[in-house]
């Protein structure tokens, strides 16, 4: 009987250990060396390169993981009681605005932020812009030629009958990029007219993708004639071998994103995090992007504009109201859903 009990005990101990320890994963919070955890909304290779450079310069060890803005925001929200990461690096500002409102960010005025123009940073220093990307149209030259159609140059031209079933954008509900497009149209035309336009555009759609970068990729692969997405992503695809890509910025004016960086409230290792933020605002750090295929415009005036992006440098931009866009997101998406049904 005693032997049995011992066996039982042994078994249960093994099971419990198996359940709880899983793999004897020594998650020692290494206090002695500085470690920094980053959630990043950048492209993977851009993130990795930036992190490598920072490690080289400071000797701080960095763990970084790439996620979409929505995922990062949900993550930070869920981890509010016990934040795992200290820096949110890259991704559109509306996510940051939303996080600021929910009290998930920490105020931080970097000494290097002085150089960044006021329109690219939060007035209360909760987030700072690091790059700017323009929204636009991405076409497939071969498909357009086949049908004998010119590349559309404006929002209005997307409604031409020849584009029926040949336009792709992401779903504003799932994608920050697509929401920027929706907010742009509404700010450009007014709410009523803007939603009317979106309903007409809906008749032209082939499909709505979930992710914001997909429309550019699909246009490049010949899945559709025109995709609506950020132009710097389209330039990247073209460089990577999708040679049929052509880009255009709508001439009525277009919206843009400000990619930002921010300090996460109560995150571990705040000092290292601040060092990182200071560093990404320098011109050297901002110039890294273009070496790994990220062709956004940069917020530090001393940083050099990627030559691939020079063609769209003079794009007409609307006075995009980030505050309005961030605050009305849920409501706008709901209205859009009703309008296109």
């Amino acid at each position, binding site marked *: 009987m005693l032997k049995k009990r011992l066996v039982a005990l042994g078994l249960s101990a093994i099971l419990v250990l198996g359940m*709880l320890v899983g793999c004897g994963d020594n*998650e020692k919070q290494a206090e002695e060396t500085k470690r920094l955890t980053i959630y990043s909304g950048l492209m993977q290779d851009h993130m990795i390169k930036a992190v490598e450079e920072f490690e080289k310069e400071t000797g701080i060890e960095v763990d970084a993981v*790439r996620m979409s803005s929505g995922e990062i925001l*949900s993550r930070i929200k869920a981890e509010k009681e016990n934040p795992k990461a200290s820096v949110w690096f890259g991704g559109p500002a509306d996510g940051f605005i939303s996080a600021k409102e929910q009290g998930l960010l920490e105020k931080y005025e970097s000494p290097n932020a002085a150089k960044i123009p006021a329109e690219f940073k939060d007035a209360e220093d909760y987030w700072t812009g690091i790059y700017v990307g323009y929204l636009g149209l991405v076409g497939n030259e071969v498909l357009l030629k086949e049908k004998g159609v010119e590349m559309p140059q404006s929002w209005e031209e997307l409604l031409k009958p020849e584009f029926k*079933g040949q336009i792709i954008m992401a779903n504003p509900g799932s994608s920050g990029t697509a929401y920027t497009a929706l907010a742009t149209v509404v700010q450009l035309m007014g709410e009523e007219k803007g939603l009317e336009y979106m309903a007409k555009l809906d008749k032209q759609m082939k499909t709505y993708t979930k992710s914001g970068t*997909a429309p550019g990729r699909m246009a490049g692969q010949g899945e559709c004639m025109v995709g609506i997405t950020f132009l710097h992503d389209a330039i990247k695809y073209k460089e990577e071998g999708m040679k049929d890509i052509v880009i255009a910025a709508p001439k009525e004016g277009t919206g843009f994103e400000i990619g930002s960086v921010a300090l996460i409230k109560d995150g571990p290792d705040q000092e290292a995090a601040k060092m990182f933020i200071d560093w990404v605002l320098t011109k050297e750090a901002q110039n890294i992007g273009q070496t790994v295929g990220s062709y956004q415009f940069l917020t530090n005036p001393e940083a050099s504009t990627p030559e691939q992006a020079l063609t769209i440098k003079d794009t007409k931009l609307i006075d995009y109201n980030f505050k309005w866009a961030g605050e009305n997101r849920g409501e706008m998406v709901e209205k859009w859903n009703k309008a296109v049904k």
Partner: protein
Amino acid sequence: MENLQTSKNSFLKYRLKEMEKIVRDPILFTSILLVMISLVVFIVWPLYEILKESFVSESGVLTLEFYKQALTSSENRRILFNTVGLGVFVGIIATAIAFVFAYADAFLRIKFKKIFNLVSILPIISPPFALAMAFIMLFGQRGIITYKLLGIPDANVYGFKGLASVQILTFFPVAYLLLLGILKKIDPSIEEAARNMGASRGQVFKTIVLPLVKPGILNAFLLVFIQSVADFGNAMVIGGNYTTLSAQVYIQSMGNYDLKGGTALASILLSISILMFVLQKYWIGSKSYVTVTGKPSRSRNLIEENHIRIPIFSICLLVTAFIILLYCLIPIGSFVKVWGIDYTPTMKHYEYIGKMGVKFIKDTTIMALIAMPITGVLGMVIAFLITRKKFIGRRMIEFTSMLAMAIPGTVIGIGYVLAYNERPLMLTGTATIIIISFIFRSMPVGIRSGIVSLQQIDPAIEEAAQDLGASTLKVFTSVTIPLIKSAFFSGLVYSFVRSMTALSAVIFLISARHNILTAEIMNQVDVGRIGVAAGYCTVLIVIVVTVVGIMKLLLSKLGVDTSQSKI
């Protein structure tokens, strides 16, 4: 009244006696306790956190507001309809295909069985949206078949057509494995007796085979339905405008930053799955299908009539050829510059993987390997407890362990983040939490196949051992496990494979230090590096095949017969 009272009393007494028996058997008692605790902690608690999130407003008041919002929008109602419609459609077709394959495998004398097996396994061992990718390569607007062969200018693969096809191909293998296990166990002597009495093949099939596999067929349908409904990867990649609930849960909670609305939708989705589950219990639970006393007495004489062989064989061959074609595209896609545009051969995608991806590959494999034995043993123990033991809480164990499968991954992911982010269990950001999610995501299938196998074995054998004085542990290890070892082995294999390809739940649990391969593949698809994504898929499939091969080798060295398991 009087009578009722006494019967109630005697019932209670009986239950107490049962409990006493359990408590007196320490191993049984502790394992029941442990199973219960682990289920409560890793399934019930996160679900509770999700419900809490969906029922409690920002200011902490109980409210139905989020459900009202979720159910009143016409879009959500359409999505609900989409989800159920897709699940039923995919469930029926996939189960039918699975049955044809399983029947051909178990009953017919045909060549190429090896290829059928391999092919039906491929969809299981590939990452969640590999097939969707291959489908787009074939049937997209610039697809090889639609554009190059048929010259259709505006092919649209996105939506119900594409999603349903991909789901059928992805989910039928699980049903096939399940059905095959059952068909192989049917004792041929009954059929032969019927044949000797002059019954035709058709009659034998209708009156003997079909009734015996009915619970299996229903189980298979249910399994596919729930997987289809919870499927996230394909819905995201190829669903197009045909939005399903699990994709909407993600869109709502991730895209709209509306966690509460998302969890409300998820609870609705969960109710559908629970409903299906209850239906199945009620439907099958009332019948008993004991057909074997341990093992089939002899191997069956395979059917050789051509009018039966040729049609079935043709169906299998067609499906097989198609799947092989799809899978060839993935490695091919990883060796060309840009699919659909520039077919120059290149190694650059693999160079990229070698530079950037070694850590993902290593981490994922190690974590899946750790989860595998825990899942296998736990699954079989639970199946054994459910089918063979009577104790208070048995139903709860059965219900919760099955529930794990019904929860859409995206939601249990959020649930895990919500639940394990504070004391007593601070697990977010660790590898442990990823491994635990692997275990609880893949265990239900092991339990299910364990239950199906056990239901086919007459408990008398085990009872005999028990009567001769063997303890529960002894009975379990020396009688039960040998009888169901093929189910156990396929449970192990399935667990590893499923962990390697898990995505929807784990995507919330990855941290900067512990990332997984599938999330990285999704990233690459997202940024348009189809070549790199295809390369990762290829690497993943190679790893899975290697590990499964090594396992088979080891097991055959140990004298476990693995020919039953079709991987």
